[in-house]
């Protein structure tokens, strides 16, 4: 490992700084009552629940809050779409 690589590997403060900036940006927005990911999650689930009975146990919600892009992943197991 080069000397430069050595310093790069040891310096963890920039990672801490970036993690905090992303986290706090999201948390400050939430205090203002605009947790977009939570609103979308609830509304998407409500729309689907109008058409099919959703078993809460079969719903997996995954979220990754990023700096410029966040991803919301909702995985719903829907019963009875195909009639036997």
């Amino acid at each position: 490992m080069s000397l430069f690589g050595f310093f790069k590997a040891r310096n963890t403060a920039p990672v801490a700084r970036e993690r905090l900036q992303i986290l706090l940006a999201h948390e400050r927005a939430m205090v203002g009552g605009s947790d977009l990911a939570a609103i979308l999650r609830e509304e998407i689930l409500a729309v689907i629940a109008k058409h099919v009975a959703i078993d809460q146990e079969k719903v997996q919600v995954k979220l990754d809050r990023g700096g410029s892009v966040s991803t919301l992943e909702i995985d719903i197991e829907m019963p009875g779409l195909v009639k036997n």
Partner: protein
Amino acid sequence: MSKVLVVTSGKGGVGKTTSTAALGAALALAGQKVVVVDFDVGLRNLDLVMGAERRVVYDLINVVNGDAKLAQALIRDKRNDNLSLLAASQTRDKDALTSEGVAMVIEQLREKFDWVICDSPAGIEKGALLAMYHADLAVVVTNPEVSSVRDSDRIIGMLDSKTAKAERGDKMEKVLLLTRYDQVRAARGEMLKVEDVLEILSIPLLGIVPESEEVLRASNLGSPIVLSNPASAPARAYADAVRRLQGETVPMNIPVDRKGIFAKLMSWRVA
């Protein structure tokens, strides 16, 4: 047979969350199924120390209130499949936690995991009492410093009177985890020694975690220290503590960080 463990201290900033993450990860590395639960409602930090802060969707209070199923709220660690996190709520206040709700969640967690590790908030109020109430075993985190030892003594008193075990008339098992210990300063008489703290608190010793810059490095990275730097002194101390938790007899020593010649030169120059 699953075990519920509370990591508590009374005083803030002594290393409860760091220790919860490290003990949880070390148990997971040993093949145990582990969940770490943050009880610090409104001021959660375990998610950050575990590096899962971007992935929290549901939390303990959502499960207590029935807004989410337990399985939906559990966040699986990306580095170790045996390790899961249940986050505290950041936006609700601590009155949202009810003792019936906590009892229900702990019961469900006992079915899924070998170890349920509850990270207590500082203080002696509702959150701390709820975190300790269902515990089978308490890890009292203490720094070799007067205010921390005093607060630990207070917490030990509460563990003996305000927990389900105490109410049943059973003896609450308590062990001491001495953190931020500086062997050189203790030897010089500048810091309370291990024996001093043990004599004052008179509970068995689980481990001695030396003061180390590696702890800050791990929290910067969002990784339990036993995962990010297993060779570091604190990581070895936590790994030993976990072997003792599992019933092994491990000689009590204080690990030291092995510094390279370059790092030694650097720290000498800074000093």
